């Protein structure tokens, strides 16, 4: 998770020409593969779920590619390099969260849904209202996540590709957006999956090389790596102990607990993660793909621990904080320190490719949710051909692409904090989606009213608490920069003390789901409940793979 990407206008590191050509090669290869993949795209199941022909192993890689965003790679390594232990805490929340997905969600969702999260949530409820609510929260989560990636892309290019100036950065956001629309439009879920697989492979291989390189320098001795990192740390800061970033006050401590809760419960409610489970042939493959994802993501975060402390020890926090991307520049600077221009070029290209793969996954999820849940099910009441639905999904992808380009440029120029956007996406997913998913799967009495109260309650609470938090206004001015880290300077209308709303909004959403259910007069649909339960656990009636 990154700090704000600082858009400084001074020099980049390494050779932008090398960085751009490696990135260009990635774009070229993935575009060719996307066009080849598109030849097999015939049906709605092809467009939304890659024909359910992706193997468990491939899907595990694609999940890792979807999940390990630039925030994961650059942000966590940077946070460890500068703040040490507190950066490490992020990666643990991001990893443990996968157990919720593995044990409670992945297989059951694969067995019961067709294309979107709402397929399960609306299964035994009144279709219209529940689908609409699920689509709204899917769009909200995806949009926050997309914005973070788009804004991150602009910051990254300053550092890696040598592009400076607002207009040039805006142009880069347009370029990223246009590429992502092509991937999604042409390749559908299959093309997107291949892009994510290639990116995950490159990212993990790159991190492995850097990890081994760092460990060689320290004779494979973790203790001496940590010792060196501590010896050059910012004065008076213990980077090996907790508290460097969050230990300042009782509020910041509580804030960290809140963030930790949102991280661990958010993953299993992220619509773009859930949608990946529908690309495999059976529930067993869904399980296999989560197992692969857990191993890949876990190992990657262990690498980032070494890379982070390695950057701290070998580059030093002062040089990192002085570089154009500040905290986010730790991993690229370390690559330059170790392997010169070439390794930096590879790492830079991979980091940029990472953003492309993640935005493609988000766009297809958001467009599927609108076309399948809102257009086909609510507006057209199911009276639409699969081809018509896919056409709407494609149009939606272009619209969402255009919106996120526009908002991305605004977010970039406002210097919006990426960590805030990603954490907000996790908090919304954990509050608006997860309680309803769990109640739907495991609580027989759960009703439409409970689902709506929980989803809208969670979503609205999250947004309101964020608007009145120090993230938006009223955070104390940082004496070093003379600016407040809040979105708005010079105004203060905050009354909620925490940056992350999870600690309040998640329990509240669970409570509202329960309350809405016990207060509703509606009888739960026991036939539908029997069907959902039997299907989810046995896999009978699950959507089959498309035969080509």
């Amino acid at each position, binding site marked *: 998770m990154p700090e704000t990407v600082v858009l400084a206008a001074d020099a980049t590191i390494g050779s932008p020409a090398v960085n751009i050509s490696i990135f260009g090669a990635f774009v070229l290869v993935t575009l060719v593969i996307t066009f080849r993949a598109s030849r097999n795209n015939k049906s709605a199941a092809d467009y939304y779920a890659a024909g359910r022909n992706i193997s468990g192993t491939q899907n595990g890689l694609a999940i890792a590619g979807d999940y390990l965003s630039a925030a994961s790679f650059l942000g966590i390594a940077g946070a460890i390099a500068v703040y040490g232990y507190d950066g490490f805490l992020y990666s643990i929340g991001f990893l443990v969260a996968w157990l919720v997905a593995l044990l409670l969600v992945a297989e059951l969702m694969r067995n019961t849904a067709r294309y979107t999260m709402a397929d399960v949530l609306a299964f035994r409820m009144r279709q219209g209202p529940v689908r609409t609510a699920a689509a709204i929260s899917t769009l909200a989560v995806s949009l926050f996540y997309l914005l973070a990636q788009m804004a991150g892309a602009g910051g990254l290019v300053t550092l890696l590709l040598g592009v400076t100036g607002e207009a040039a950065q805006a142009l880069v956001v347009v370029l990223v957006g246009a590429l992502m629309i092509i991937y999604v439009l042409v390749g559908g879920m299959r093309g997107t999956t291949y892009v994510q697989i290639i990116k995950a492979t490159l990212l993990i291989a790159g991190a492995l090389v850097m990890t081994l390189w760092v460990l060689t320098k320290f004779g494979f001795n973790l203790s001496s790596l940590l010792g060196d990192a501590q010896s050059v740390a910012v004065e008076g800061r213990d980077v090996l102990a907790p508290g460097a970033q969050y230990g300042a006050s009782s509020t910041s401590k509580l804030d960290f607990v809140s963030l930790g809760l949102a991280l661990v419960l958010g993953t299993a409610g992220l619509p773009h993660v859930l949608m990946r489970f529908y690309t495999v042939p059976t529930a067993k493959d869904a399980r296999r793909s989560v197992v692969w994802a857990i191993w890949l993501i876990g190992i990657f975060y262990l690498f980032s621990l070494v890379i982070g402390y390695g950057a701290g020890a070998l580059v030093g926090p002062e040089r990192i904080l002085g570089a154009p991307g500040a905290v986010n520049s730790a991993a690229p600077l370390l690559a330059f320190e170790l392997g010169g221009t070439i390794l930096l070029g590879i790492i830079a290209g991979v980091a940029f490719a990472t953003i492309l793969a993640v935005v493609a996954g988000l766009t297809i999820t958001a467009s599927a949710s609108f076309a399948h849940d809102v257009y086909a099910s609510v507006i057209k009441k199911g009276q639409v051909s699969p081809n018509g639905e896919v056409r709407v999904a494609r149009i939606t992808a272009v619209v969402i692409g255009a919106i996120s380009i526009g908002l991305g440029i605004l977010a970039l120029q406002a210097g919006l904090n990426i960590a805030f956007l990603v954490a907000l996406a996790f908090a919304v997913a954990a509050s608006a989606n997860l309680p309803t998913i769990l109640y739907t799967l495991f609580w027989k009495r759960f009703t439409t009213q409970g689902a709506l109260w929980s989803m809208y309650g969670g979503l609205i609470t999250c947004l309101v608490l964020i608007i009145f938090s120090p993230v938006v206004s009223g955070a104390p001015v940082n004496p070093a920069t003379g600016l407040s880290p809040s979105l708005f300077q010079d105004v203060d209308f905050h009354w909620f003390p925490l940056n992350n709303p999870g600690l309040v909004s998640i329990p509240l959403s669970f409570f509202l789901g329960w309350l809405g259910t016990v207060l509703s007069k509606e009888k739960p649909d026991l036939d539908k409940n029997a069907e959902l339960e039997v299907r989810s656990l046995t896999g*009978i009636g699950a959507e089959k793979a498309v035969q080509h």
Partner: protein
Amino acid sequence: MTEPAERRLLTPEEYRQAQDSPEFTELRRRFRRFAFPMTVAFLAWYLLYVLLSTYAPDFMSTRVFGDVNLGILLGLAQFVSTFVITHLYVSHANRRTDPIADEMRERLESHQYARGTGQTGPDLGKKGATRA
């Protein structure tokens, strides 16, 4: 693989029958007996770690060897426990729940839970044929 469109859809009654069958009760029990307590356990262990890091930094700074302290080791232990739970779940599913699920799916596909054929399976543990 059979063409999905050609199969006869299951009736709500069949789903109710299947849901009430002893083998389904056993399948659900085995799934929940593992998944629910394990979820509580790993969430508690994760929250304990977060709370210790937040409210007991001195304890977490205790050096264990060299510059490696308790916080780093417990953090690495979170990775280890995640990998171990993943492995335990997969082996539990393979041994304890998949055989019943496979068996039941076969029976549902051949409509053995339709009215009048209310017999229940004696061969719970027998591994059902895997699908193509």
